[in-house]
């Protein structure tokens, strides 16, 4: 029953996308709201709740990530209502976008709620493949090229993930049989795995696959190029939903790897993410358009989430994840409006908004831009405080306090660089350039309001309490 409720909106969306009428877009947007019904029900149920035997299980972690992804989905579908006002999109392409969005959603349901490594991978692959066509909705040579790029690099990344999964499965199969595919069983028997080397090799390969998919070192620019070439809602879906599906996989795999050998996991992931932030901060410094700027900033934040998670601060990681998942799609959707009077123009982008709609939009975008660089009371400010604190605590226990303080100092310098760049861009948007009147529509403003309310809800004591209970 629960699975039917979860899949129903996607099925309706898929079927409705074949109807060739202009007004169908309102129905498509409304369908995305239906996903909230099963999610609210999932929150009320006692957890872990078996949705489909031991294959799909709702626990605190995946219910939270699923809720965040659903809110992003709702925001994106609202903004999609006026996509044709900012970019050239044919009605056919618009409907096909929704058709693949429905398949994408099915993939996400399976990957986020799965308790099975194989099903997780199948869901992720389905979501990845469906996004390929979403990129191509933009009928330009650049988008066509990037759709192929995504297909190829995405396929390599996802293949690495499966390769690692098979090795991890092989490492535990002698003692667990086919149950070695289940996250909870594997976690419970992590210390009994007969060949930890094989498991760690599998984990490293899977992690590299996931990191490639999130745009980590050395594949820092491929995601930014794709998001630049496609329509802005695609970028919002990538940063707010697809990356959530990837990161929940990392959370689950790393929990097992922590039990197998925490030191190996920590050093491997910490160095990898530090290197990623190092490269990305300089790329952000040189970014000359909104899409690449937000995309690279997304890579930086994902790296921070991963870093906090392995440093023993799951609370900070989850808070940072939630904030990033709301802020980044909101900014990507805003860029559709900001760029509609000429692409790549940063100077004066925040000028020319009039009336209630315009001023609300202006206020919210300013708020998001300042929140993404962790200015208080942004949830990111708190998550970074908790995260860095946890790093010090972990280092104290391992007698590597000096190395950790050094790493944090490097991180702070890199984050200051990013901070400086964002402030400079914000000032340029607000005080430089010409004033040209820009059109903004209610659907976009409402989408941004949804994101800002969700962001605000993240710092409610009840939410923080819930996140603390997950960790």
């Amino acid at each position, binding site marked *: 029953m629960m699975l039917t409720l979860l899949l129903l909106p996607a099925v309706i969306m898929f079927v409705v996308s074949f109807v060739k009428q202009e007004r169908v877009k309102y129905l498509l947007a409304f369908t995305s709201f239906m996903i909230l019904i099963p999610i609210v029900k999932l929150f009320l149920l006692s957890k872990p709740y078996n949705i489909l035997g031991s294959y799909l299980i709702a626990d605190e972690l995946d219910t939270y990530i699923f809720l965040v992804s659903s809110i992003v989905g709702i925001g994106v579908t609202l903004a999609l209502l006026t996509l044709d006002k900012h970019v050239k999109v044919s009605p056919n392409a618009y409907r096909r976008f929704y058709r693949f969005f429905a398949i994408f959603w099915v993939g996400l349901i399976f990957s986020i709620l799965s308790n099975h490594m194989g099903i997780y*991978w*199948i869901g992720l692959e389905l979501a990845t493949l469906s996004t390929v066509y979403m990129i191509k909705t933009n009928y330009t040579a650049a988008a066509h090229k990037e759709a192929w790029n995504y297909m190829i690099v995405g396929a390599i990344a996802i293949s690495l993930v499966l390769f690692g999964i098979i090795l991890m499965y092989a490492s535990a199969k002698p003692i667990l049989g086919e149950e070695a595919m289940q996250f909870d069983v594997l976690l419970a028997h992590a210390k009994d795995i007969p060949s930890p080397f094989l498991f760690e090799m599998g984990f490293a390969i899977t992690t590299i696959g996931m990191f490639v998919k999130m745009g980590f070192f050395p594949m820092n620019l491929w995601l930014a190029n794709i998001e630049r070439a496609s329509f802005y809602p695609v970028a919002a879906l990538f940063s707010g939903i697809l990356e959530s599906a990837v990161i929940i996989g990392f959370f689950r795999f790393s929990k097992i790897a922590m039990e197998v050998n925490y030191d190996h996991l920590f050093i491997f992931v910490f160095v990898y993410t530090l290197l990623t932030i190092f490269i990305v901060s300089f790329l952000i410094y040189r970014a000359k358009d909104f899409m690449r700027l937000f995309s690279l900033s997304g890579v930086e934040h994902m790296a921070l989430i991963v870093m906090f998670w392995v440093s023993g601060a799951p609370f900070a990681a989850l808070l940072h994840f939630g904030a990033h998942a709301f802020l980044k799609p909101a900014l990507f959707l805003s860029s559709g409006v900001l760029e509609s009077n000429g692409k790549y123009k940063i100077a004066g982008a925040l000028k020319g908004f009039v009336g209630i709609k315009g001023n609300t939009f202006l206020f919210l975008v300013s708020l998001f831009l300042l929140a993404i660089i962790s200015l208080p009371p942004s949830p990111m400010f708190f998550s970074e405080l908790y995260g860095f604190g946890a790093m010090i605590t972990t280092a104290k226990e391992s007698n590597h306090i000096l190395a950790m303080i050094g790493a944090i100092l490097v991180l702070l310098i890199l984050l200051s660089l990013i901070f400086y760049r964002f402030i400079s861009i914000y000032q340029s948007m607000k005080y430089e350039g010409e004033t040209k009147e820009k059109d903004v529509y209610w659907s976009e403003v409402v989408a941004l309001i949804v994101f800002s309310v969700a962001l605000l809800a993240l710092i409610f004591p009840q939410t923080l309490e819930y996140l603390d209970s997950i960790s």
Partner: protein
Amino acid sequence: MTDFLIGLFLASLIAALFTTRLYRLLLWYSLNSLMLGLLALGIGRNIDDNAMILTGIVTIVLKAIAIPYVLKNLSQKFNFIRHIVPEIKVQYAIMLVPAILVFTFYLSEPIVDMIHTNANYVAISISSLFLSLLLMIEHKNVAPKIIGFLSMENALFLLGVTATDGMPMLVELGIFFDLLMAIVVINLLFHKEELQI
């Protein structure tokens, strides 16, 4: 028999790396998939695993027959360039292939005592993965890149069959479904759509 089939699997992949004609590449991919399917059938019969036998049959039908046929049709429909010259020169590729093989056998040495099956099978799976990546890298045209991606899928399947005596049936079917979805997406990507606004 298993060793013989794995040998042919690897040989067909290496031959694909040096091919300069598209249809010949499809043939090598088809043979590669056929060897994989026969391998699954053989191992499935040895360990009396009906799920693996079924997987073997699906592999032969889907990967050795249906996918090459669909790709050949697509290539005719969209006039693919059939003369596909690898970017890496033959003299370099001929050195690169054994280097990859030696490296992967070295990489799999520590796991010899850890898995109950032959560790060389794992080494060949990893080398097939690298060789498939090489196939994707060495061509500029899209069609060989697709074959490279499909060969990667075969390498993963080989690892699943040899290192774990088969993945759970549900996962195998899911992977096949995703493969079909990939073909649908590839087909859509080839369509040159007109801008109708």
